[in-house]
């Protein structure tokens, strides 16, 4: 459709200033934190569900793709306008954040920044555990549609565990409600769970009911370094089998350690093969005992150095090492391909071995860090998009990373979602029929393929990601 005609259609729904058509504006919504650049034809900024319903109904009438977009922190291409059309900028949707203390709930609109939910809940002694590292930027709508999680998945589970009710505009423009305010709810199909993690292909969330839990009273943090990666792996599994459930267990490999020390020397042991950060939360008395136990187990497995934070300042300095990974590794090159292949945690050492083989084979800058406790690793390849030859090697390496994860009983994505970047590998994990079942659901919900097309499902004949 001509842009002018599209503009006129949108004018029937939105005031002028919430319709963006300038080239500069369209380019500003052509990217996210992943890869690729797709220019939408138009961007609209809805502020209520009726507007969204109207856009989607019109889109169905004229067969125009619609892409919901939050803060676009996606690392898998979730909000990219791969087929042109309309970007639905949800970040300007009217904000609502109600903490229902009596029922331990938060009722939120999609545009609310996730960290604001953390803050408001904690103000009244409650806790919303899901915390993707982008939570101070990302919207809750984006978080739950991508089912993104963060380091606390090990103890508290992922986003989907906390969403119990939704208000959704369907791909055909109806406004429906799923689930509700009760923790127990077995009425019919669990559409809430289906929509959470659907990456915006099955609906646009306009309200969510989130479960909150009591806030843990205290926490303790420990950093241990190991000469051998395999030892760190044993320490991790033994801590878990000793009946301790840390709130986070983060792993950094030698390449990360070196990068961080190069970037800002902070006394990390640069010869260590791995660093593990363990955090315990809960009742004061319990965590004292548990952190001691963690220390013992690490020592037993040949940790060369163990530091336990005695105050918040020391805790911050431990976490700083982890937080420095991103800036440190981007010094190696301008393009960062961040994967989140996840394996059963017992397979972490094997997965690490595979990753190093891949690094050697393709001669790439590949570093590994991640949430060791739940098997969610982040192999990051640092490269330069302009280096076409190297990008070809990156493409092959990425394929092998996924193959390795699936072979070890793992999954393509632990928290970033499939988007455009992992769609080609879906069959590898799900099989033909498994993927077809998902596709049938999409076709039933969205017969005209209006909502976020080009995501999750591979294009015909596509079996590999193309980055160059």
């Amino acid at each position: 459709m001509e842009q002018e005609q599209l503009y006129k259609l949108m004018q029937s729904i939105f005031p002028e200033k919430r319709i963006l058509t300038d080239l500069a504006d369209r380019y500003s919504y052509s990217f996210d934190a992943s890869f690729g650049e797709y220019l939408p034809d138009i961007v609209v900024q809805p502020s209520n569900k009726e507007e969204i319903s109207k856009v989607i109904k019109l889109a169905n009438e004229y067969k125009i793709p619609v892409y919901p977009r939050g803060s676009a922190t996606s690392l898998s291409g979730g909000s990219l306008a791969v087929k042109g059309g309309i970007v639905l900028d949800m970040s300007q949707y009217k904000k609502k954040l109600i903490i229902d203390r009596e029922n331990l709930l938060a009722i939120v609109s999609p545009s609310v920044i996730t960290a604001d939910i953390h803050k408001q809940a904690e103000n009244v002694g409650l806790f919303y555990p899901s915390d993707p590292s982008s939570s101070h930027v990302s919207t809750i709508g984006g978080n739950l549609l991508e089912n993104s999680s963060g380091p606390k998945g090990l103890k508290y589970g992922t986003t989907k565990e906390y969403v119990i009710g939704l208000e959704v505009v369907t791909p055909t423009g109806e406004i429906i409600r799923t689930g509700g305010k009760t923790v127990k709810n077995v009425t019919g199909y669990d559409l809430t769970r289906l929509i959470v993690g659907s990456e915006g292909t099955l609906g646009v969330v306009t309200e969510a009911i989130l479960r909150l839990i009591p806030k843990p009273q205290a926490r303790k943090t420990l950093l241990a370094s190991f000469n051998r990666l395999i030892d760190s792996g044993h320490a991790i599994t033994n801590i878990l089998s000793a009946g301790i459930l840390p709130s986070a267990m983060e792993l950094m490999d030698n390449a990360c350690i070196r990068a961080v020390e190069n970037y800002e020397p902070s006394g990390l042991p640069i010869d260590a093969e791995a660093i593990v950060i363990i955090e315990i939360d809960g009742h004061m008395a319990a965590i004292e005992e548990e952190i001691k136990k963690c220390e013992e187990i690490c020592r037993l497995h040949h940790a060369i150095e163990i530091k336990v934070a005695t105050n918040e300042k020391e805790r911050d300095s431990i976490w700083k090492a982890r937080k420095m990974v991103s800036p440190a590794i981007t010094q190696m090159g301008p393009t960062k391909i961040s994967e989140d292949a996840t394996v059963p945690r017992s397979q972490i050492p094997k997965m690490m071995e595979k990753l190093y083989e891949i690094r050697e084979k393709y001669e790439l800058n590949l570093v590994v860090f991640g949430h060791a406790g739940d098997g969610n690793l982040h192999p990051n390849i640092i490269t330069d998009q302009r280096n076409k030859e190297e990008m070809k090697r990156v493409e092959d390496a990425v394929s092998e990373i996924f193959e390795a994860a699936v072979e070890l009983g793992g999954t393509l994505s632990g928290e970033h979602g499939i988007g455009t970047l992992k769609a080609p590998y879906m069959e590898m994990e799900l099989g033909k029929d498994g993927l077809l079942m998902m596709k049938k659901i999409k076709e039933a919900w969205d017969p005209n393929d209006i909502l976020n097309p080009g995501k999750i499902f591979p294009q015909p004949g596509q079996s590999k990601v193309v980055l160059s």
Partner: protein
Amino acid sequence: MQQDKYALKLYDFAYEAANTCVQCGYCLPACPTYESMGKESQSPRGRINLVKMAAEGKIDIQKDLAEPIDLCLGCRACEVACPVNVPYGEIYEAAKEVITMQQQDKELVKNSSGRVKMQNRVLNQLFPSNKRLRTLGNLTWIYQRIGMYRLVQKSKIINKISEPMGQFEKILPKLESPFERYKFGQVFPPKATKKMTVAFFPGCIMDAVMSRVNRLTIELLQCVGCEVVIPKQQNCCGALHTHQGFIKKATELAKANIEAFESSAAEYFVNNAGGCGAMLREYDKLFKNEPEWKERAKAFVNKTKDITEVLVELGPLPLKKEWNGIITYQDSCHLRNVQGVMNEPRYLLRSIPGATYVEMEESDRCCASGGIYNLLHFEESMKILDKKMEKAKHTNAKTIVTTNPGCLLQMRLGVERSNLQHEVEAVHIVEVLAETCGIN
């Protein structure tokens, strides 16, 4: 679209830096214009991307890039928020430079609006000249002295010409008479045991319309044991030129300033304006291709200090009098985000006898003064300012303290706009400190 010669220039100047952005969006919550305008093109991530697109020749520099860059406040809060240390300031200034370069070359100036012409004249002729600015200051003093301002305010004549000018006329501080002014080249002896010699940078706007604050700064420095030199041949720092893309002019000014201060043989080069200080502290970045100057600029940068840093280092101040009521502080973005000075002003304010210091929520967020942003983009600026004033009100402060002339005028305007002029005053930190030290 093809890369034309300007796109290629932009590519040379800024592409590498812009390409370090991983588009994570962590800068979004830090950006005041993203918050007030609600569009990605008015966010740091969006602007960096547009610079990239323009350098690649995908969008037009004048038609598509100029406005988003123009609407950036340059507060650089995004740099602090960035997890991968993208040098936003460099990208922003490079974009400004290329935009201006193209406008000048194409003689767009001829057909450009009166605003652009005026801006060019002011930047190239008025600001680099201390004499001309001083004369302007003196004329303003006469204007205030003979009471003409009452007539002007009553008749609202300026408002009819330009609303922002009318608003600013009202909040202009009362100027000191030309006879009370310090002179360039003068040396002031320490009033306590001598600790060091410092050279003072009076700035251009500060010198013209806030010479009282400068005089008090010199006296405070004397109080903590400084011999204070005012180097004779100094100029405007060049910040306004840099922000409007006149990099060549800024470089000329920088060279003159470096020479003037080198010859002072002082240990520290002290300034009292966050914006000027930030420019002075980044002089080395102007000389990427002039190694000899780069070295000299680096030495200059290392000696440059904000007044609050020096007062904390050489203090304590001989505080004598009490200051009543609640004091709150609005950070100068350039002092905080570029120079990294945030604790010293707070430390000094907390030490004032009699007063209670209350931290303002989001005090680290730009007040939207942004050099001359508030004159160029009045409405956008006022939207941000009005929000800021809400936060200021919550502190119940009687005194709002700032550390930069632009912010000071902006806060005074904010006070006026929210009808608080009888209860609240906005002052420069030097004024509060001097008053409590018994200097005025």
